[in-house]
Structure formats: C-alpha cells, structure tokens
C-alpha cells in the first residue's frame, strides 16, 4: 500500500490494517519520520514532490524490496506540503514472518525514500527559506544497499 498525500496519517490505523485478520505475521518493523525543529532553528518545511513520478518510484521500490526479502505486507505513506516541527512526514511499515526480514526491508525502504524518491525540501529558518541540498551521509546510506544487490 503506497500513498502520497497532503493530510496527516494515523500510524496506529496503518499498522492495524497491516496485521488485520492475519496470523502468519511474526513481526512488524516500522519507521515514522518527523520534522525536527528547535535545535536546528527550523520553523517549518515544505515538501515538494513530482506527482505521478513519486508514486511510480515508490511502487518500484516496493517491488525491489519484495524481490530481496519474503515480505507479507508493505505500507508507505509520505506527506507533501508545508509541515511544522514535530509533524509526521513518512511512515514505512513492513510485516514479515521473521523479524530480521522486517527490519532489513524497513530500513532499505526508508533509505531509498530519503535518497531516491522525488521530494525536495524548502526549509524556513531564522534566516529565511532555502532549498535543502542532498546530504553526503544520505548518499552513503543509499550506496550501502546498492552494493548488496
């Protein structure tokens, strides 16, 4: 299940849907990304995306994750638009029979979302608004996965 939306989402409802009525799930690994504020002086950020391409790339990433690990369910919800510190940005949840697969696939999908999905961030700080550049650390994390394939 993949959704890109402006509205907030309820992680509990998404996790409940993932496991509803099943008894073959051994574990659900999930990640919720939030807007950090305070220490960074960030007042708000606006996530711009490429409608159509975003969904297309996310679907491809899910296919790749399912090719690498035996997954039972995958849920990805990503927001766009203007977000305040403390607000949720993204949910990645993976259900599998065994915890190792759930953890690995969840981290893989999260890394790809952060480095490959067509989103751009405009941050509003004390010194005005500016577009965030890609981080070397993120590119390193993405490379880690590429090498493993």
């Amino acid at each position: 299940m993949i959704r890109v939306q402006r509205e907030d989402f309820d992680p509990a409802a998404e996790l409940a849907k993932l496991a509803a009525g099943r008894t073959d799930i051994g574990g659900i690994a999930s990640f919720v990304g939030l807007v950090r504020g305070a220490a960074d002086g960030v007042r708000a950020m606006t996530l711009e995306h490429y409608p159509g391409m975003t969904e297309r790339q996310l679907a491809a990433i899910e296919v790749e994750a399912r090719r690498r690990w035996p997954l039972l369910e995958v849920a990805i919800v990503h927001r766009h638009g203007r977000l305040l510190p403390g607000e949720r940005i993204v949910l990645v949840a993976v259900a599998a029979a065994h915890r190792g697969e759930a953890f690995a696939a969840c981290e893989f999908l999260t890394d790809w979302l952060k480095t490959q999905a067509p989103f751009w961030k405009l941050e509003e700080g004390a010194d005005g608004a500016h577009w965030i550049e890609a981080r070397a650390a993120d590119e390193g994390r993405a490379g880690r996965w590429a090498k493993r394939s």
Partner: protein
Amino acid sequence: MKLLYFAWLRSRIGVAEEEVAPPAEVATVAQLIAWLATRSPGHAAAFANPKLIRAAVNQDYADVGHAVRASDEVAFFPPVTGGRGP
C-alpha cells in the same frame, strides 16, 4: 514536449511547467539543457550549472545522454532530498 521544473529550478525559471518545441537537432537531455539555457535569463540562471541538475524522462530518472522526443514529459530538478533529517 512537456517540461516540468521543481524546487529552485522552478523558482528561477518562474513557471512550474511549459510546453516547448525544440529544434530537431535537440535529441538528448544534455542538448535540451543547452537549448533551454538560451530561452530567457531565468532559464540561463537555472541551467547555469548542469552538474547540480537531475532529469527524468517520462517519470524515470534519466542521465544527460538519454534521448528526448517531442511527445516526452521531461522534468528537471535538484538531487532529491527526501523527508527531512532523520
């Protein structure tokens, strides 16, 4: 050809999308970038440093050698930055 611009490319060019009809010799992403840079001061500013720009052709990432045709949707944007921070 339908063009889409995102993030600071959109800000500099001043529009989010436009329809263009490049001359026949514009056959690749690199040639399209060179041609677009001549269209206005905003385009020139946006495409001044092609190394900072990524492209997608028909919603798939494409390198500068990728072919472009009149019927394509071509998008230009900075490297993606995903969800913030974490």
